């Protein structure tokens, strides 16, 4: 199932905002057994690593690391954020 991140804002920054977004996502998500959760960045202007780290950590704790994936995007702030998160 796909989560359209643009519905959480066009600028996704800060850990508190990321935590709030993750809580809202978990409250609404009803994935089937083994179903992947895809984060869609289409329409998002900018993402910071703090926001993304909070969201990914919360969703992966709940559903497992392999089930939560980020869809490909040309947005450089997303690719840079993912790079720094994966190296930490």
């Amino acid at each position, binding site marked *: 199932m796909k989560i359209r991140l643009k519905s959480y804002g066009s600028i996704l920054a*800060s850990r508190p905002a990321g935590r709030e977004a993750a809580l809202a996502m978990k409250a609404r998500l009803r994935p089937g057994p083994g179903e992947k959760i895809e984060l869609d960045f289409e329409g998002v202007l*900018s993402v*910071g690593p703090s926001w993304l780290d909070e969201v990914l950590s919360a969703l992966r704790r709940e559903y497992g690391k392999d089930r939560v994936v980020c869809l490909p995007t040309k947005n*450089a*702030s997303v690719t*840079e954020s993912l790079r720094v998160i994966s190296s930490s």
Partner: protein
Amino acid sequence: MKTQTKSRIFRIIRKRDGTRPIELVKKLRITAQAIHRHLRSLTTSGKIEARGRGPKTRYYVAGAPCLDKALRWCASIRKPAENPGEFLCETRDIFTARLGHIGSLTKAGLKEEELPLVISMAGEIGNNCFDHNLGNWRDVPGCWFETQATAGRLWICIGDRGQGVFRSLARVDPSIPDEQAALVTAFEKILSGRFPENRGNGLKFVRNIIVAGEKRGLACRSGAGLVDYGPLGGDCRVELARDPHHPVGTVTLILWGFK
């Protein structure tokens, strides 16, 4: 003779943070017409630029920022008398809302595809002010957030009157000896000032972006510490070091060339 006068005018403008033509007339004791002729010549050659309109017009060195107000605010020992609402973001919500204003700088020449990186970098720096100082501000809560686009250069200045990087990190790692070492740690090592939370990647993200481009630079000053990164980091360092007083909290200057 004319060239000497022009050089003197340029030196005065470079020394001050914005100079009005009337100030040059008084200082150099030559006619207003002559001053305006030299100013036009310097502007045409791209050395200086006018900002403001009518009698409020001031001349600045093209491509250089005006940081006097920001640096004074950050370094004032006493609580600043002036807290201009256009620059001071008292809460994280105000800061986040103003982050979006960077988008308007595409009209000045900032590339659309670079906008996400610039916004996310400024977002990380500004949100750090709140993450590390909430409930611990020295006097004025919030951060100073100012952008200036001049001669193909975008300057972003973000400062706070918080605890500073050293006090924040020394709680987690008492082996950090001083303010300089604390700044290096903040930008180069994964260490969160909010243990036991798993944090500390925001400034590494900023540094990675800055060092990845030729026309980018950053300097950060906290107490007696001062670091710079990126090919234009030295330019940022010079601007931050202009104020002889140390900031009471932290001040960061980002330079992003877009022409």
